[in-house]
């Protein structure tokens, strides 16, 4: 029972991280209909910027007391800001000139951007080519235990921040004028522009929001898994991004609520598979679920089926 609850808790925590990354994928796909493969690198950038900013302020060094909570928020906002700018630049430089090109070209460009970011991050004046420890920004001791499951502050921070950001995004999309514009562009960019929506602005903004959410996920990843941050060109980052993308597809790509649901599902499946079957096939469970979902309900759990017309 304890193992079950522990797995459930871990699955939900990691699922929240997947959901945050998946939101970026699903929003870009919803509007531009292409897979932004550079998104996982924005996520990695978020983690690395968190380390760098914390280093600038002088936080999280070994032997120092854990900094107060608002310093963590400062680091989070800094990483989100940098990644937001990077997301804007990526869209402006690499994707906008290809707005009307075949999707495969945009896909290759995305892979190119991804390669660029990975290898740029390895340069000496960027982050360097060696792993670095994540700073400890939040106290790691167990707060309380529920039925044998130790609840730690980083886990609560992950879940809390993720939920707050998701609620903010929900408000942005469904309660503001800009969100209405986003939904209109997602429905049909041409008609939206006829109705006076500035499509370019909306697309740029979507990229910025997606990149900021990915940066938050990167920060939270660092908070949860202290250990080492692998170098920027490590396949681990892309794999985490891919799993988040799988989450977006499973939930129904283009659907914001679906991405959250998919993220939680993927997190749970991964952790229950590891706990009860075998840890060796960790990545296989996620992709097996993906193939199953696509074969049975290609539009995803919450997606709406579209019919391709001649």
């Amino acid at each position, binding site marked *: 029972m304890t193992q079950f609850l522990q797995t459930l808790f871990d699955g939900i925590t990691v699922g929240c991280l997947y959901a945050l990354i998946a939101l970026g994928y699903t929003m870009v*796909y919803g509007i531009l*209909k*292409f*897979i932004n493969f550079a998104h996982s690198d924005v996520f990695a950038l978020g983690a690395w910027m968190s380390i760098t900013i914390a280093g600038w302020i002088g936080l999280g060094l070994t032997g120092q007391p854990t900094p107060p909570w608002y310093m963590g928020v400062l680091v989070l906002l800094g990483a989100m800001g940098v990644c937001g700018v990077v997301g804007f630049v990526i869209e402006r430089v*690499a994707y906008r*000139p*290809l707005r009307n*090109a*075949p*999707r*495969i*070209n945009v*896909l*290759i*460009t995305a*892979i*190119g*951007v991804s*390669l*660029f970011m*990975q*290898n*740029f991050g390895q*340069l*000496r004046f960027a982050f360097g080519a060696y792993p670095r420890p994540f700073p400890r920004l939040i106290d790691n001791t167990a707060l309380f235990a529920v039925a044998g499951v130790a609840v730690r502050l980083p886990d609560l921070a992950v879940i809390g921040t993720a939920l707050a950001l998701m609620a903010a995004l929900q408000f942005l999309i469904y309660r503001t004028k800009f969100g209405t514009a986003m939904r209109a562009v997602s429905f049909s960019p041409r008609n939206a522009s006829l109705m006076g929506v500035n499509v370019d602005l909306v697309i740029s903004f979507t990229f910025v929001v997606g990149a900021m959410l990915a940066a938050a996920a990167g920060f939270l990843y660092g908070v949860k898994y202290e250990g080492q941050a692998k170098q920027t*060109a490590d*396949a681990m980052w*892309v794999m985490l991004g*891919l799993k988040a*993308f*799988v989450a977006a*597809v499973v939930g129904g790509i283009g659907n914001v609520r679906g991405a959250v649901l998919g993220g939680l599902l993927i997190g749970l499946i991964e952790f229950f598979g590891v706990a009860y079957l075998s840890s*060796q*096939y*960790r*990545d*296989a469970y996620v*992709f*097996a679920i*993906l*193939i199953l979902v*696509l*074969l049975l309900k*290609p539009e995803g759990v919450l997606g709406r089926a579209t019919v*391709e017309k*001649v």
Partner: protein
Amino acid sequence: MSNLLAQSRALAPTTWTVVLRALWPFLLGIAVGLFAYFYAGPELGGYHAQIARVAGINVILAVSLTVVNGFAGQFSMGHAGFMAVGGYVAAGITYYGTMRLVDPAQLSNGLFIGGLLSWTGIGQFEGPVLTWGDALFVGSCLVGGLAAAGAGYIVGLPSLRLKGDYLAIVTLGFGEIVRVLFQGTKDQIPPWQAETVRDIPWYDLMLRLGGPKGMNLLPTYTTLFWVYLFATLTLIFCYRLKVSSSGRALLAIREDEIAAQAMGVDITRYKVRAFVLSAFFAGVAGGLYAMDIGALNAGDLGFQKSFDIIIMVVLGGMGSISGAALAAIILTILPELLRSPPMVWPAGLALLIIVAAVQSARGRWRPRSLIVIAVVTAALEIGRRVAIANGINLADYRLVLYASLLITMMLARPQGLFGIHEIWEMIPRRRPQTAGADE
């Protein structure tokens, strides 16, 4: 009447021409392979021969992916998965097969320097071309290709239900599952325990493929001969496929699936067939790859390897075999060249002149592409000189440069080098002027 019969008999192909028509690809492939082995190999030397082998293997991979991505328009992102299937099967058969064939005492004495087998290692173009070991190796590559073709059949089936991005994701997932499954195999039996291999049945041996560490100490049979034999055969086969009725059916599916179906193309059959054929060659390439570097690790054959192959196909032009082959060669050599960049401007000038000549011959001037070539060449040359002047080691920046070139290429020429055409179709053909044809 009898005259007519004699005439038609004269028109019918003789046995000799039929045999020649069936054999010429093989003869050409063997000729190219022998040329590569005896002439190009010694000319190149170890390091360059290694790059030449990798380039040849990449040609096979890129051209085979063209069948699915370029001809049939089914976007597959799991090509490295097929490569892994073929590579592991071939490596397993060759590795354990050698242990069974060769006297274990001999193996444990001078590991991989048997008289019977060409465990050549470094001296790739010394010693005989054909040995029994080579026969085992080529046979295992073909079996690996068949295993990969089987996997291609399984992957091809979902393509009947899924299209576009969804198919891409499913094939990506397939590649990852293959990787994880091979990483879950049992440990390899090391060469110093070769005696035990004889007591273990075949099916059990094929489960001992190294797990997460991958297979190591594989015999390096792959020579320039085998690489270029298979590369030539792949090129000929795929080109013959493109101009055949099956190929036209595939092109029709790529252009418009619904219209193709309406014209009576059996979409199901052709899509699966494209996957099977493409996977077969990828499997063979996997075998060549494993026995080239002497090691095989499923971790290296993940989505990033698939991306590399897709980049080659897209850069060459979707559906252009010669384009994919050329892009494979360029993209193999480019990162190596960027280690110590040579002068860029002669190549840029040559490219500028070629593009200008083609445009003038066609009578369609595109100043924009010429300006792009000139600007990129100038930028690269200036960058190179600045780096040399300031003592910056460009080898650190090579992958950043590679990615930048890729993005620039996609922005400047989205259709790839040759679009959907072959190289020789880019040179305009002078049409015979017939009287009044244009009026």
